[in-house]
Structure formats: structure tokens, C-alpha cells
């Protein structure tokens, strides 16, 4: 079968999906890592994971050890999680750093702002300086980051266009939801391990075509015809609902709505993938962010976080709401894992899209294909 990516970038009606190799081939995964994840703005985690000053979480991002850290001024930053001396891993597990980050190997110490504070015995026993070791140039290596809707987006190469430039369209689209978000806490997040390439989880989220069969419960109140496709070529895609039925607790209790929303959101909701790997939703009473973290060619993690308009929401309702979303995401697992297994069939040509229903999926495929084609052009230039 063809590996020609130009078939993917053809118009929806005649395009093929991404070839099998893009789901099962390690070399393609490595190419995506460099061209899509390191050159772009993928989501890493959420800032609510480091709520207190000094909170630090080490994250292996596609094999690269990173450290998310809330510094003394309250700002959240991302660093490469290694010492500038011998490249040793600095922080092995989630912790609160009260003082400095001390390398466990030779005890070089860094501030929570990433500055190198001391290089013990670097000039010999008891001599902590050396003319050739300039501490000012040896701070932790910072990874460019941008926080939007609590999601920490990172640009490892450091030379992508600014996040807010690339995503101006979506930020404008959802401007009404630019208001304080309150993470529901421990009862408002979950993690699912899926045995599929990261893209299949994204593709499944993009479209509403599967809802009647995979989420029959959801479909009783949110029918297929109440959904619309969202296609913004080269930017984002997803689906919208014209009939959002908000979560009801015992005795019909509801979560407070976000303030001053226009009529569109009274019954409307939108579910959009910020390429490459962040699944976002906006609804009048709660929103969520799911980060799809690739862990190998054929596995990924789904990290879900739910937010409310108020810090004061009912814990049982939050828990029940989270459970409902978790059940919906679990319903999708057999599909994404089934498609992953299907990619072992050599006769599969990437598949044909429904011209009416699969626009958002094609939009994502075309974005991936273009990123790879452009990267290959740059590398071979």
C-alpha cells in the first residue's frame, strides 16, 4: 500500500487516511516526535498539577525528561530535568521543593527559577568555584511554554511561532470562556492507558459520527443530527453540539454556569482538538482538557481534567460528573484499540472518509501529513 502522504492532503472526498506505517512504524513515530511534538506546541500537563509554590513534577515527554515547577513567585515553568554537569536526572518523583534542587550525583544546586546556585568542590575539595565554570551560563535548560486554559503547552525546539499567534482563531472563538477555571481537584481527573497510537485517540475525539453506536447513552439526549463539524484547516478540528444537556445532581441540582455567556452556549457545547494532542471541551457549566500523551508507537495515556466556574461546587456532584465522563472515554477504548490492531492489515490504504461526517478527522490527518512533508523538505533542504 502507498505511503504517499499527498493522498492524505487531497480534498476530503477523494483523500485517503494516513497509511498504516503512521500507526505501527517506530521510525515514523520518531519522525513525528521531532516534526510535530518538538517543533510544535503539544500539551504537556496542566498547571493545577503544581498548585503550591515549590511543587515539582517530573514528566517523561516522549522519552525526554522534563520538570514542571512552580517557582517562588508563583510562576509555572518547564525545564529539562537534568543537571548541567553530567546530565543526571534531578527530580525522580513528584515533590515539593522547599529549598534548592540538589543533583543527587555531585550536589550541584539550582533554584526553583532554574539558576545554578552552587557547584560544590568544583575547583577541588572545599573550593566551590572555578574560573572556567560560569554559573550564570549553566542554569537549568528552560523549555518554552505557554499556559492556556490551565494546559501547559510546550515548544521544545523553541522556534515555533508564538502559541497565541498560531491559536488566535480558537482563542477568539472561545473568548467568552476566558474566565477563571477551577479544577475540581482529585475527584475531577482520571488517567486512562490506551493501547493505540496517540493519533487514533485524537481522531476518535474529532468526530461525532460514532456517537450513536459507541455512546448510545449519550445519544439519547445528544443525537447525531444535533451535532456539527468544526473544521479549521491547519489549525484545529472537532465537533459541536446544539443540544447540550447539563449534568444534574440529586434533586436536579446543577453546577453554576460560567458568567455572561451568550445564547449560543445555553444549549451549545464544543469539543475541539488543539493539534496535536489536547482535547478541549467548553460547556456552560463545566469544561475539560484531556491531554493525549504518546508513550510509544502503539500506546498512549489520556489525562483528563475537569474545571468549573466556581471553587465552591458539590463534591458528590463533581465525583459523579467525572465518573460519567470516564465511562464515556472508556467506551471509546475498544474502538481506538480495534483500529490500532487493524493497522496490521497490509491491504489497508488509510481508509476513505465520509465526505459528510469525517471532515474533522481528515482535517487532522491533513495537518499531520503537511507537518511531516514540510519537515522532510526542511531537513533535506
Amino acid at each position, binding site marked *: 500500500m502507498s505511503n504517499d502522504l499527498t493522498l492524505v492532503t487531497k480534498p476530503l472526498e477523494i483523500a485517503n487516511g494516513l497509511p498504516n506505517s503512521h500507526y505501527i512504524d517506530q521510525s515514523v513515530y520518531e519522525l513525528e516526535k521531532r516534526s510535530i511534538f518538538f517543533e510544535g506546541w503539544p500539551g504537556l500537563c496542566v498547571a493545577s498539577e503544581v498548585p503550591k509554590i515549590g511543587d515539582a513534577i517530573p514528566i517523561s515527554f516522549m522519552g525526554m525528561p522534563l520538570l514542571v515547577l512552580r517557582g517562588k513567585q508563583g510562576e509555572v515553568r518547564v525545564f529539562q530535568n537534568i543537571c548541567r554537569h553530567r546530565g543526571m536526572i534531578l527530580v525522580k518523583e513528584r515533590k515539593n521543593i522547599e529549598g534548592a534542587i*540538589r543533583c543527587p550525583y555531585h550536589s550541584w544546586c539550582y533554584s526553583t527559577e532554574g539558576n545554578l546556585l552552587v557547584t560544590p568542590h568544583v575547583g577541588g575539595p572545599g573550593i566551590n568555584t572555578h574560573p572556567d565554570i560560569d554559573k550564570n551560563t549553566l542554569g537549568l535548560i528552560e523549555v518554552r511554554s505557554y499556559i492556556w486554559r490551565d494546559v501547559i503547552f510546550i515548544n521544545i525546539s523553541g522556534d515555533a511561532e508564538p502559541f497565541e499567534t498560531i491559536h488566535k482563531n480558537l482563542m477568539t472563538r472561545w473568548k467568552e470562556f476566558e474566565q477563571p477555571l477551577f479544577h475540581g481537584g482529585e475527584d475531577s481527573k482520571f488517567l486512562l492507558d490506551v493501547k493505540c497510537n496517540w493519533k487514533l485517540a485524537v481522531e476518535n475525539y474529532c468526530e461525532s459520527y460514532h456517537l450513536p453506536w459507541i455512546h448510545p447513552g449519550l445519544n439519547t439526549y445528544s443525537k447525531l443530527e444535533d451535532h456539527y463539524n468544526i473544521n479549521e484547516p491547519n489549525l484545529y478540528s472537532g465537533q459541536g453540539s446544539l443540544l447540550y444537556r447539563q449534568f444534574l445532581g440529586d434533586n436536579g441540582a446543577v453546577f453554576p454556569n460560567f458568567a455572561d455567556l451568550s445564547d449560543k452556549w445555553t444549549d451549545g457545547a464544543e469539543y475541539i482538538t488543539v493539534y496535536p494532542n489536547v482535547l478541549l471541551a467548553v460547556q456552560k457549566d463545566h469544561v475539560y482538557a484531556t491531554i493525549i500523551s504518546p508513550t510509544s508507537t502503539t500506546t498512549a495515556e489520556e489525562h483528563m481534567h475537569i474545571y468549573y466556574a466556581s471553587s465552591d461546587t458539590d463534591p458528590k456532584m463533581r465525583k459523579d460528573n467525572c465518573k460519567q465522563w470516564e465511562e464515556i472515554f472508556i467506551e471509546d477504548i475498544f474502538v481506538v484499540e480495534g483500529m490500532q490492531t487493524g493497522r496490521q492489515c497490509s491491504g489497508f490504504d488509510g481508509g476513505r472518509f465520509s465526505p459528510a461526517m469525517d471532515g474533522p478527522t481528515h482535517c487532522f490527518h491533513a495537518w499531520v501529513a503537511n507537518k511531516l512533508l514540510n519537515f522532510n523538505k526542511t531537513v533535506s533542504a
Partner: protein
Amino acid sequence: MNKKSKIDQLIVEAHRQNDKKKLIKLYFEASKLFSKNKEISFFLTQAYVFSLDVGDDIESKKLFHMLKQH
């Protein structure tokens, strides 16, 4: 057992227990048992590093000034 051997043993034990506050104290005490600048600086440095690690600003400042004098 002389004082140096004793404190050496206590330092090893504190390392084993990962008791950083104790290490600050012990390394500082150890620095007093030596007379050569290089030796004193070695132990003060060890104490200083652990004071930074635990975020004991007062101790860090004190040790930093002492290190500057040696």
C-alpha cells in the same frame, strides 16, 4: 573512638536516613574538628549544600559567609 571517627559514623548514619537537617549540623560540627582551610571549607560546603537543599535560609547565609572567609 575519637571525635572525628564518631562524627564520621554519625554522618554516615544521617546519610543512610536521608536526614538532611542533621547533616547540616554534623558537617558544621565536623568543620570545627579540622584546622586546615581546605578541610574546614570541605565540611562547610557539605553543610551549605544541605542547607540549600532543605531551604534553611538562615543557615545558608551563615554558612555562605563562613565559606567566604576561608
